[in-house]
């Protein structure tokens, strides 16, 4: 606010001085020019009346001549001053309006508004740099989960779409150059509630700068950065960035996963699902030769993955020299039948339409279907706006880069343990994933399951913690026994148990819990609150652990002669 006031005052210097001078000269004129009172005696206006007259003359003109009718000399001076004061006022008001319209002033005004809304944030929030498809998906997922975010984007047009987007929680946004540290500070990087910074601009150097500045300005921050090249990836990793995401490699990796171990792919999709997302169906892509249309950054990454999996692929690329396509590449766009036939579409089992143009991708899918209706079709969707036509095109698998990346970041942000689980899971085989999928679909409705972490400590699970310190030995199963019916279980099961240095995938139900265990649980959406009973309430825990309901009140204990629960010392705050 201070800045605005200073800018306004500085710009208003000359109009104000002009105004003061015009007033002074006009007043002086009226005081010096002889007048006449109502009895014809010579009379001179004093400063008081001169100030009064000049004040209303400049703004209204038409109060009449006071206190006595003017002499001709006074009238002449009044004529001069009317014009000069009106011009001075117009100048002053005009300058003020010009300042308000001034881009610099408006930027300052917006920044002030942004700063205010940041300082008012009272819950943890993420600072997201760069607003595009990925960011918008991420912000939506975060706000569904009740986590706030703040956006800084250098392109005003993109930021306008942020304002039009209807998020459940308001998202403050600012149009500014995010590579400037002062903008990051303005965005709240040093705010006590800022928990992380996500650098998602489409330029590696800017992401690098953002990640570096965030780590320096607030070392405790969780920093996630996007990097397109391996070089940038290594550079960003060198100063302790928590998570680096290469959009092409991640996306291609996910696609390759879909092709060689479909169940694992489905598992990944489900685990990293955002709240209220419908579950995708398991897919069974055939084995054989694939056709890969487009050999850009994405195509290259896919090809590399396919090669590593031992899947042979024929490449179709429009400009093979520019993209350094390997030998045997068919030249063309892939949208024409002849190119596809040349690539051997009749013998192929599947096709990946992976160019960076949505219309071309759709055209490839349509043409390929006509030539070989049995093909397994994978289409790359670049823009979320085209979702409807992609759905109508009915490709077997439609993948969007932004959504894959957003889901991954969302998982990393909300449940850090999930990343560890996925790292371990990928080393398992497809059959393992298939059994797990069956377990998940048994508990989940048609929505993505919720994944969350429970720490066996005084804060997260006081009832369990107390019981363990008092010598009882609860097992994992007791976490999700129904709090009222002991013989029933809640639709929850454990994915990962992390204990000191060891990690157990899908731990046994009867595993005994130890203090400071970290458990990754998977359950139906919104079932988590039910589990809160046994985690927090000693009586409920006692009932679940032993099967007996204990007397809670003193009178009841006397009356029924029941033993009270082993009540440990209450947590003192």
């Amino acid at each position, binding site marked *: 606010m201070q800045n605005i006031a200073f800018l306004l005052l500085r710009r208003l210097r000359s109009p*104000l*001085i002009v105004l003061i001078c015009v007033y002074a000269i006009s007043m002086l004129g009226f005081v010096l020019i002889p007048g006449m009172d109502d009895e014809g005696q010579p009379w001179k206006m004093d400063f008081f009346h001169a100030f009064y007259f000049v004040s209303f003359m400049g703004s209204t003109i038409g109060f009449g001549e006071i206190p006595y009718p003017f002499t001709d000399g006074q009238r002449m001076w009044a004529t001069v001053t009317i014009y000069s004061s009106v011009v001075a006022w117009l100048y002053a008001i005009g300058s003020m309006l010009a300042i308000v319209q001034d881009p610099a002033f408006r930027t300052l005004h917006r920044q002030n508004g942004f700063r205010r809304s940041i300082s008012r944030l009272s819950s943890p929030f993420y600072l997201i740099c760069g607003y595009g498809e990925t960011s918008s998906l991420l912000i939506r997922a975060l706000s569904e989960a009740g986590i706030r975010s703040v956006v800084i984007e250098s392109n005003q047009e993109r930021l306008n779409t942020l304002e039009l987007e209807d998020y459940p929680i308001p998202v403050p946004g600012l149009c500014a150059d995010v590579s400037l540290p002062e903008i990051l500070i303005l965005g709240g990087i040093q705010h006590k509630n800022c928990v992380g910074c996500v650098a998602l601009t489409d330029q590696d150097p800017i992401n690098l700068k953002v990640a570096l500045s965030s780590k320096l300005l607030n070392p405790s921050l969780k920093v996630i950065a996007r990097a397109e090249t391996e070089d940038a990836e290594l550079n960003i990793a060198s100063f302790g960035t928590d998570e680096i995401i290469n959009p092409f490699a991640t996306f291609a990796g996910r696609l390759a996963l879909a092709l060689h171990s479909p169940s694992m792919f489905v598992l990944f999709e489900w685990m990293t699902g955002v709240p209220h997302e419908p579950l995708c169906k398991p897919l069974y892509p055939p084995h054989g030769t694939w056709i890969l249309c487009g050999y850009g950054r994405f195509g290259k990454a896919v090809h590399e993955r396919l090669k590593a999996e031992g899947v042979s692929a024929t490449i179709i690329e429009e400009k093979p020299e520019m993209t350094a396509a390997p030998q045997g590449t068919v030249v063309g766009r892939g949208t024409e039948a002849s190119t596809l036939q040349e690539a051997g579409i009749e013998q192929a089992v599947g096709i990946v339409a992976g160019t960076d143009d949505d219309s071309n991708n759709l055209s490839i899918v349509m043409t390929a279907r006509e030539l070989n209706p049995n093909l397994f079709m994978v289409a790359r969707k670049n823009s979320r706006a085209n979702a409807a036509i992609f759905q109508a095109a009915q490709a077997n698998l439609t993948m969007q880069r932004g959504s894959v990346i957003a889901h991954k970041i969302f998982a990393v942000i909300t449940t850090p343990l999930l990343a560890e689980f996925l790292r371990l899971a990928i080393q398992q085989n497809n059959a393992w994933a298939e059994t797990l999928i069956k377990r998940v679909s048994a508990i989940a409705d048609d929505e993505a399951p919720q994944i969350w972490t429970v720490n066996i400590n005084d804060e997260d699970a006081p009832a369990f913690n107390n019981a363990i310190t008092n010598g009882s030995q609860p097992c994992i199963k007791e976490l999700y026994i129904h709090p009222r019916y002991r013989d029933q279980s809640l639709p929850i099961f454990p994915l990962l148990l992390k204990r000191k240095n060891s990690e157990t995938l899908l731990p046994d139900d009867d595993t005994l819990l130890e203090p400071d265990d970290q458990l990754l649980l998977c359950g139906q959406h919104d079932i988590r609150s039910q589990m809160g009973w046994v985690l927090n309430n000693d009586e409920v825990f006692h009932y679940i652990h032993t099967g007996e309901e204990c007397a809670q009140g003193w009178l009841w204990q006397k009356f029924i002669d029941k033993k009270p629960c082993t009540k440990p010392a209450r947590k003192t705050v």
Partner: protein
Amino acid sequence: MNLEKVVFAFFILLALTLNFGFFLGDIDVPDHHSVYELFAAIVVSLIATVLKFGDRTHLGALLLATSLVADLQLIMAAVVWAFAEHIIGTGTTPAVMAIIVSLSGGALLANITSVLLLIAETMTVRS
């Protein structure tokens, strides 16, 4: 030499000198204190204030504050004068004059501070 600096210093000094000129004389003798001089002092003081607008340095803020004090004191003096002359109608009795002149004396102090600050600032800048 910088014309802007000349104008700036000119108005600040002029505000002081005009103020001093009005203040000079016996405190309760109306003949010693001209209304024109008070008017000029107010106008120049206002211009000096506007010239000080928008300087974000610490010294700039201090300069602006002294000017605002001087403005306030001088305008109070003018208001007292107009009140006595036109609203109560007692005219400039020695008692009223003493109030007006002492108010302008306060403004004089503020103006002196302002000039001292200006000199101090000039001394620190070696150019």
